[in-house]
């Protein structure tokens, strides 16, 4: 077991969750508000990582982090180090790649809240943001929890994008999935197997939790029971 890779993967997953979930809430809330063409367009754009091959994503990320890119130049100017092949680089990749897993469950959960409840909140004198934090988010807790689990698990298992933008630098960009690949290359099948079992358990646990969440009886508004 490569504990350094394990620690890095957990750090990457936690950072991704910490950054992506608040952003996912805001994005999900914005996208749940209307079914306009503009919103449909945005939903399609933000859901693109779901269907794009990880190598394509990785390629574009690598290009955008290249030495001559404006993103890289700004980053170097601010932090005096390159973005590509760094933890920050794979974190950025992870954020973009996991975006759909963070916002879609939240958006769906917010859309499921009856309009009448949102109207009731406003006629109770709650502003838009008060309504979001006091009424809508508590009612969308299952969607938010689902987003947390999915984002965390998916970050742990990500391989293609991480390899392309981060390479295989121990302690910096070598995550569990990269480490498994590395061990297999080095014919250390035992170690690779152990780490694989861990990821299988994480994946299984994720699916089980989301299933349980989906079947948990919710406190639905009385008249909608």
């Amino acid at each position, binding site marked *: 077991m490569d504990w350094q890779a394990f620690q890095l993967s957990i750090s990457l997953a936690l950072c991704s969750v910490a950054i992506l979930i608040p952003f996912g809430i805001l994005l999900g809330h914005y996208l749940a508000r209307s079914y306009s063409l503009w919103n449909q367009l945005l939903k399609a754009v933000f859901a693109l990582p779901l269907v794009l091959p990880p190598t394509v994503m990785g390629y574009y990320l690598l290009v955008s982090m290249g030495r001559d890119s404006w993103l890289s130049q700004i980053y170097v100017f601010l932090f005096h180090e390159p973005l590509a092949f760094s933890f920050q680089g794979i974190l950025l990749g992870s954020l973009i790649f996991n975006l759909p897993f963070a916002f879609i469950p939240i958006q769906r959960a917010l859309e499921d809240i009856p309009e009448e409840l949102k109207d009731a909140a406003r006629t*109770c004198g*709650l502003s838009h943001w008060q309504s979001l934090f006091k009424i809508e988010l508590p009612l969308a807790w299952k969607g938010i929890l689902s987003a947390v689990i999915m984002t965390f698990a998916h970050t742990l298992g990500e391989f293609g994008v991480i390899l392309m933008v981060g390479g295989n630098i121990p302690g910096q960009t070598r995550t569990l999935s990269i480490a498994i690949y590395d061990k297999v290359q080095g014919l250390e099948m035992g170690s690779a197997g152990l780490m694989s079992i861990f990821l299988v358990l994480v994946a299984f646990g994720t699916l089980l939790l989301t299933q349980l969440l989906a079947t948990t009886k919710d406190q639905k508004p009385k008249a909608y029971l």
Partner: protein
Amino acid sequence: MLKVQISQQAPFQMDMEFECLQGELLALVGPSGSGKTSALRAIAGLIPIKEGTIKVDSEVWLDSAHDLSLPAHLRSVGMVFQNFALFPHLTALENIGLALPKGALTKDAHELLLDMQLEDLQDRYPHQLSGGQCQRVALARAFARKPKVLLLDEAFSAVDYPTRMSLYEELIKLRQRISIPIVMVTHDLREARLLSNRICILDQGKTLQQATPDHIFSSPRNARVAALVGLRDIYSGTFFKLPEHGGSPHAQMAKIVCGHASDSIELMIHDKGRLPNQTEVKWVIAGQYVALSNVASNEPNTLCGSIERILQLSEISSVKVRLPSPLHQMHLELSTRHIQELHLEVGNTVYLKLDPDGIHIMPVYSDLKHKYAQKQKKEQAQVIGAVILAAGQGLRLGGVPKGLIEIDGLALIVRQIQELKASGVAEIFVVTGYYQEQFSKILEKYHVHLIHNGCPERGQASSVRLGLEYIAKHSSHIEALLMVLSDQPLLELADIRQLIEQFKTREYGHFLIPIVNGHRGNPVMLSKIGLGLILAKNNDSVVRTYMDEHPDEVVQWETNNLHFTFDLDTLESVHEFTQISGLVVKVPNSG
């Protein structure tokens, strides 16, 4: 006071204007899609309104002219929703506490719970409460904000009957304590009648009528309102003014004639002077103005019928009475005791005395949009001509020029010309035949076009054709034409105006014919295009033959007005006319 005025075409049509005073309950009633809930949501600020104003006392919540629209959470409203809309993750107390204004204490929420008899349930979540308890919490939450307006969106429809009754009581009690405008949306007319001070009828986004429940149910503005407030018996008839008898103007009477000549029914009503003579109307009568008896009576406004069905609903029974054919039926709600006292049973003959005060008449075209479109059509200027066909020999009267029959010393054709001119007809064309000289002499001073048919023996069709050809050639500016027979003595200004109005407001076709009790009447009206169509056909084509061949171009105007069919064709009809009119009729000497 709440004042609402909304007028917009998009995104959905709304043309509403209503107000609700302090302490008053206004019920918005209308069919699904009439805009009731939209009106409520507009007041609460939950939907954007492009054009309109909403004012509560001195506060302006919406003023589109000044680009002002207060956000929903800043409008001081309390709203109760059909499905309660309680927040499921909050307890009853928390639900109410959430709506409390800033600075209010939790004890205020406790007091509201106490008012609603919910003090033991304060820690329960909505899913642990019954429907009635949920709605009580919702009511308490709506009042928690100390709102300036209370909005009830079908608030009582999702609960059972006993719960609804107790909620009504709660609402009535609350109204006694808190004097604010309350606007309630409901489908339930009984609920509206029971709870509201005033009812506003909405249809297709428009306000049709706003009045007290009693007024709306007894005097709906039009047939649509009558149907919307659930009046089942809406009858048709024609309104006739009666000669003034010199008494108080309030006592001026008129009559409604329902049905055809032989089996028509006449009812006396009070003439409020709002309708012109011979207006097609719908009429209704509220139950309290109908006296039911099983004792035969010949008094005016008494109808004889038979009981077809009695439905006993505890204290009140619904009685369906079969009436003579033009009216068909009447539904009455009577106390069961009254029915028992009269020993009424199905099949019994009964007498219904209709109080003239309770008969409410409504002109047929009362829908605002339709009315406006019709008004525009009516007011549209048209050059109208009239052809009077006076070429006939008058054989059935022994060979006399029928147009020269004198009525009170004035020739019938002269009377017709005067009435036609008074109704705005621009030019009159008289086609003469057998009696050309007599007509020429008498019509000299009336500025009419005289057209002589040299071959009157070829029949009326030849005169019609001649008249049309003359107009096409010499008076091409005529846009519409009346084809008048010279022997119609009852045709007067009102009839001609009504016919022209019907022609102007027709939806299709180039011809209009009055149909009286299934019989074709006269005059027929046709447009300039219609005239061209006839002339474009072969030489034998005249108005009648063309209309028979092209029925889809003919509008049949159904009317009860016998003026369009009565003619002086025989001595019997002359005698009948003398009796009806009481005028002196002098038939010229034959031959």
